[in-house]
């Protein structure tokens, strides 16, 4: 990738850059080697510690954890998306007594830690931890989805709405049949990116004792003994990262596909920006 920040390197710059690369690699390798050595001294790499992955029971526990994680994420996403659409329509309604309370509710939901909502549902409504996790995720992500879709609607050319009203649609019909479908399509990359956040947040279920992947790790370490904590944890972390990387790639792929189509005339979809996909 050529960058505008520096020239295509000449022989001298290439040498400097090569030296820099070598020093960088050596430093990073030294750091990794130190970490591996320290871990080795704790006996992390003894074969017997990793032998547990030969047992079917261990994998079935891990599979249960993955299943619980994915179930909470999938159910929360399926409920949060339509709720987000509804909240978005209410947030941009022409009627002040619908718009203003919705705005306050959205500010409230976006400003609170998800884990606090989960704990609230768990303790106040005395529900199961599964319902607490799903409810917390639904409330938070519906608010975020609503804001993403609102950004999409605001990015549409004004003529879209004006044309709708001109042919006699009501304000609500125009929102529903003309603006909303375009907004969702434009914001699809951001919406998928938010799914990664949702998936990551299921691991907060660990804190309210929901039996997701991280909790499964803890249970196994308690059962097998602390010396197996690192191997199990390592595998669980790798599984999380693999799943999330896959969803991230999907978001990037959708974005590329969208911008290719956009090149054919439609204005380029705005990136919702880091603001909507942090966490």
């Amino acid at each position: 990738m050529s960058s505008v920040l520096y020239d295509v390197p000449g022989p001298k710059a290439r040498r400097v850059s090569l030296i820099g690369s070598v020093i960088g690699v050596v430093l990073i390798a030294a750091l990794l080697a130190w970490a591996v050595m320290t871990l080795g001294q704790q006996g992390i790499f003894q074969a017997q510690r990793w032998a547990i992955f030969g047992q079917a029971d261990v994998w079935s526990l891990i599979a249960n954890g993955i299943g619980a994680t994915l179930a909470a994420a999938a159910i929360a996403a399926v409920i949060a998306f339509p709720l987000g659409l509804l909240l978005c329509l209410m947030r941009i309604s022409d009627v002040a007594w619908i718009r203003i309370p919705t705005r306050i509710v959205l500010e409230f939901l976006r400003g609170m830690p998800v884990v606090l909502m989960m704990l609230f549902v768990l303790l106040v409504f005395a529900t199961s931890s599964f319902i607490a996790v799903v409810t917390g995720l639904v409330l938070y992500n519906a608010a975020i989805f609503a804001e993403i879709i609102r950004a999409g609607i605001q990015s549409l050319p004004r003529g879209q709405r004006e044309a709708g009203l001109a042919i006699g649609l009501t304000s609500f019909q125009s929102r529903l049949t003309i603006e909303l479908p375009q907004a969702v399509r434009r914001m699809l990359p951001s919406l998928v990116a938010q799914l990664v956040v949702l998936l990551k947040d299921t691991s907060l279920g660990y804190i309210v004792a929901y039996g997701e992947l991280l909790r499964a790790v803890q249970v196994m370490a308690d059962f097998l003994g602390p010396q197996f904590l690192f191997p199990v944890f390592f595998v669980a972390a790798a599984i999380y990262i693999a799943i999330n990387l896959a969803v991230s790639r999907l978001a990037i792929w959708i974005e590329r596909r969208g911008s290719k189509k956009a090149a054919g005339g439609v204005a380029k979809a705005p990136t919702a920006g880091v603001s909507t996909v942090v966490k």
Partner: protein
Amino acid sequence: MDVIIESLPQYWDGFLRTLFLAAVSGIIALVAGTLLAAARVSPVAALRGFSMAYVEVVRNTPLTIAFFFAAVVLPRLGVTFQQFEIAAIIALSAYTAAFIAEAVRSGVNSVPVGQAEAARSIGMKFGQVLSLIILPQALRTVIPPMINILIALVKNSSVAGAFYVLELFGYGKQLANDHGDAVMWVLVGVAFFYLLITVPLGYLAHQVERKVAIAR
């Protein structure tokens, strides 16, 4: 509602500790994230690769995993902490740095190409182009997303409460245990103190965003 007034000292202490956690981790993350972003656009391939790998892996790791590693796995590997706060700060700043790095990088991309070309045509080196021309402009554009990352950091610090740190969420859990009959009010109080930080910050981000938008 009495329980909120009764517990005000705990709330206040938790509030200050949440602010402390967020401020310290925020400053470390800002510095580390900017360095990571600089590495990501640098001509040195090894640094580019390292920065990219770090950002990709950390952004796709749940925060709870980072905390679990810092607070539970590290001590069993022989790295012990006097206070769990330190583990929390390590986890929060390592996690947040990846998001800061992405924000700064998108800011660098938003600076018009001509700026870098002009700087180079008068003979500036990469380091000069980056530190004198690109980064000052990039950082200005990324202030709003940066504030949003800090808001997320404040909310994320609540996870520390689940790992033995007594900040707002930690106190909330404790108070909820002590006042079984008034759990709802206890947690409403906690929520209020979080909103006291996050809502004004969100308003600030919105204002800055509008200002920057006019300037461009």
